[in-house]
């Protein structure tokens, strides 16, 4: 697949790229899996407040192992710490923060994102798959900006950015920006716009891999 002169970003490079776009003072929810890595790359000189759906604002990094507290976990059930200024609240209040539009950003993993911003990330729809949705649908419709973070291509080399999702939807038209190991792409009313991509990868090659129309961001800025 990878015959041209570009390097795909590592997972940590992707996380660092996402982290760069999160400003001081933002309230952010990081989804389970790949998005969790973003926390490790937030610049130390920015105060950013991490929300976890299970009732905490101001989630801090994992504690040293011997300080793990089974009552202090994130949504992925990983041990966390609480920053000064953090707070605890119950589930209805926690999801009021999402649904009510109080979170500035959420970062979600995805199976597929469609050109219109439709998101599929909760269920493969396979007949033997046990469905589980968690807070994904609430985050998808709730945060002011919904970032998706995923590999650009499946293991089989198919684009996860698609004309229309074939997996069951998490939310309709909800994605604002897509971070992949190849590029950063905005979902706009006029279609997908490439913000940047890895060195050595041309827009033409990216569009060919992706299989849907892409344009460069600058061309469409007014």
């Amino acid at each position, binding site marked *: 697949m990878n015959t041209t002169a570009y390097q795909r970003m590592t997972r940590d490079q992707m996380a660092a790229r996402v982290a760069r776009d999160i400003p001081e003072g933002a*309230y952010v929810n990081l989804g389970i899996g790949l998005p969790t890595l973003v926390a490790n790359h937030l610049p130390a000189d920015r105060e950013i*407040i991490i929300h976890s759906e299970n009732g905490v604002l101001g989630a801090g990094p994992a504690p040293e192992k011997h300080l793990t507290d089974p009552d202090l976990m994130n949504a992925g059930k990983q041990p966390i710490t609480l920053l000064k200024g953090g*707070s*605890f609240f119950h589930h209805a209040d926690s999801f009021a923060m999402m649904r009510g539009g109080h*979170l500035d950003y959420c970062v979600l993993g995805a199976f597929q994102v469609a050109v219109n911003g439709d998101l599929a990330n909760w269920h493969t729809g396979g007949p033997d798959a046990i469905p589980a949705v968690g807070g994904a649908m609430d985050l998808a419709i709730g945060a002011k900006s919904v970032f998706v973070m995923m590999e650009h291509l499946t293991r089989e080399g198919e684009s996860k950015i698609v004309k229309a999702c074939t997996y069951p939807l998490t939310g309709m038209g909800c994605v604002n920006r897509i971070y992949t190991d190849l590029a950063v792409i905005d979902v706009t009313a006029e279609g997908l716009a490439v913000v940047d991509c890895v060195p050595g990868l041309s827009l033409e090659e990216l569009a060919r891999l992706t299989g849907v129309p892409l344009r460069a961001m600058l061309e469409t800025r007014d």
Partner: protein
Amino acid sequence: MIDKIVPSAAEAVADIRDGATVMIGGFGTAGMPNALIDALIAQGARDLVVVNNNAGNGDTGLAALLKEKRVRKILCSFPRQVDSQHFDALYRAGEIELELVPQGNLAERIRAAGAGIGGFFTPTGYGTQLAEGKETRVIDGRHYVLEYPIHADFALIRADRGDRWGNLTYRKTARNFGPIMAMAARCAIAEVREVVELGALDPEAVVTPGIFVKRVVPVGSA
């Protein structure tokens, strides 16, 4: 560094525009944000829509704002009081619009706005004048009225202690509408008795997490 502390009430309310919807905390005088209201009176915005449980007491605070004819419409549950003379005069003269809302529906509509709920079925008011013309429905054999959220541009509330992240605690029954109004407004401004260091508030006892608060103004004891 996140710093929501604003040194003066005047600064905190400077961007309230004519025509804004402003929630004002307080039940009677308990929890009434007098410093913020005085600053709003001095600031000059008019044609306001105000949401408060009452319609002013005596000659100060909300009553003074009404007296200055700066309020086009008020949503409240209990305007008539022994000392609501300024509201009474405006109402009788047809100079103020009143939307009378049962107190629990008022609270729930405010909370719904903060929680991103589009509408809800409440049993309160069914079969009364205050539900006339509203959609009704029988659910599980009980009669309900459909009520919609009340959103606001600003919330002016009084809390007890606050920190630079906007976390708040309240004092006794002065809590009343403060926490839900903070959720329902685009910009919640809290006057507080005391600003404390980040981390000084017990994370288990924070009542309004900072995500709902944009500005904190230290004003001392009421």
